[in-house]
């Protein structure tokens, strides 16, 4: 058995003669092994500062996420993967923003703790041929008040010398929302949302240690896009989004490590623009890998956002997620491979602030800070 992360294989170039420019999960051969894996993650939002809360508990969301998967080769040219994910959510979220006694905007929380459970089941099958591969994925997600069925198709093909790879994908999602009415007043019984998305990208090998990629995506949603659990929220029933993304990887031979840099520009027809920059460092340490990363995100506010919603307008929202802010994320990931067993652990801290934005706009009082942590185990067998 050859391991592509060993120095021996690197120096020999064994098994790599047909390495395409997109590599990783999209190699032009089915996986050599069956893999079974389990990941557990905990996501926890910081409580809101007391001075920003007018009514309700400042506590926010906690989510326990369990991911289970099996991925196996089928015959000589196919693979199939089954993914199951369970999200157990509890906590409260901002209901609306009003004016506090101090004359500043403050948050009225949703009150009693919300309990919800989301289960997502996805199946992906992939066909491999000499110059590329194509995958088809079907996914179903269900929680108390939300159901989604999505389909996705992707294809990747290589240039004659395997130094350039084009990728294209398309997906469609049909969602249905039927809000639970026990906690706070909601004004709909059932609504639907349809989303279509397309992506086109190209990656190019630049040298023995450098690779770059660029991609364009377009997503269109039509249907109910308002948040039914927010008192002052009314959004258009269409949403068009575009992204331009780029990535760069450079292997540092002397350090047995790699620099990872990614950028995304986002624009939508609700008036929001954003920039995302992520810098990572992947340090090989024998069987271990240590990978710290930093992410900076900044967005401008939507046309119809204001800290306290203006309900006289055709569209309005006080949702902090539509406000102008910047967010910094710092994380570190550790993995180790012992024979057929793989272990992973990761922790990440996310903080957001209106002052960190590159865009002008009023501050929303309910901006979120959170941390998340993950442990995982996987096992490969023939």
């Amino acid at each position, binding site marked *: 058995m050859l391991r592509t992360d060993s120095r021996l294989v690197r120096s020999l*170039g064994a098994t790599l003669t047909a390495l395409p420019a997109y590599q990783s999960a999209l190699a032009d051969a089915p996986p050599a092994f069956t893999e079974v894996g389990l990941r557990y993650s905990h996501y926890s939002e910081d409580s809101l500062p007391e001075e920003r809360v007018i009514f309700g508990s400042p506590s926010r969301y906690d*989510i326990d996420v369990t991911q289970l998967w099996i991925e196996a080769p089928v015959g000589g040219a196919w693979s199939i993967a089954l993914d199951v994910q369970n999200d157990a959510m509890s906590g409260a979220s901002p209901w609306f923003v009003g004016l506090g006694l101090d004359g500043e905007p403050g948050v009225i929380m949703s009150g009693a703790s919300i309990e919800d459970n989301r289960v997502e089941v996805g199946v992906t099958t992939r066909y491999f041929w000499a110059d590329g591969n194509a995958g088809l994925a079907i996914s179903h997600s269900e929680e108390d008040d939300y159901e989604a069925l999505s389909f996705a198709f992707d294809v990747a093909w290589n240039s004659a010398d395997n130094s350039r790879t084009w990728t294209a994908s398309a997906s469609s999602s049909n969602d249905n929302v039927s809000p639970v009415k026990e906690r706070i007043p909601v004004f709909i019984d059932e609504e639907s949302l349809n989303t279509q*998305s397309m992506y086109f990208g190209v990656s190019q090998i630049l040298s023995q240690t450098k690779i770059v990629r660029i991609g364009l995506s377009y997503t269109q949603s039509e249907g109910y896009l308002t948040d039914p659990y927010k008192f002052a929220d009314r959004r258009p029933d269409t949403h068009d989004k575009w992204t331009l993304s780029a990535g760069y990887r450079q292997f540092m031979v002397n350090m047995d490590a790699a620099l990872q840099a990614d950028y995304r520009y986002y624009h939508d027809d609700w008036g929001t623009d954003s920039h995302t920059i992520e810098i990572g460092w992947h340090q090989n340490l024998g069987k271990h890998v240590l990978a710290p990363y930093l992410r900076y995100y900044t967005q401008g506010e939507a046309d119809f956002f204001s800290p306290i919603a203006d309900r006289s307008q055709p569209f309005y929202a006080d949702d902090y997620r539509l406000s102008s802010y910047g967010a910094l994320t710092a994380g570190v990931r550790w993995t180790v491979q012992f024979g057929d067993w793989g272990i992973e652990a990761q922790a990440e801290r996310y903080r957001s602030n209106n002052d960190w934005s590159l865009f002008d706009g009023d501050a929303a009082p309910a901006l979120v800070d959170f941390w998340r942590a993950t442990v995982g185990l996987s096992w490969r067998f023939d």
Partner: protein
Amino acid sequence: MKTVVLNIALFMLPLWLHGCTAIEPVSAWERGYLADPAMQWDRGKREAKFAGHVYTSKEASSGGAGAAGGGCGCN
């Protein structure tokens, strides 16, 4: 803060410009470093999916990472 971000952007710009203008032929047997897991575009399929869901739920932006998934979980 804005100065820091602009400096990072200015630092990365030459890397990408350099990458777009300098392409060296790489033979099939010279791709060992490119095959290292360190050179992958994501940190693993399941981590990429989870992280994407978290950011999409808490930020106004989405997309740019291939086909979209389903579900909400976005309170």
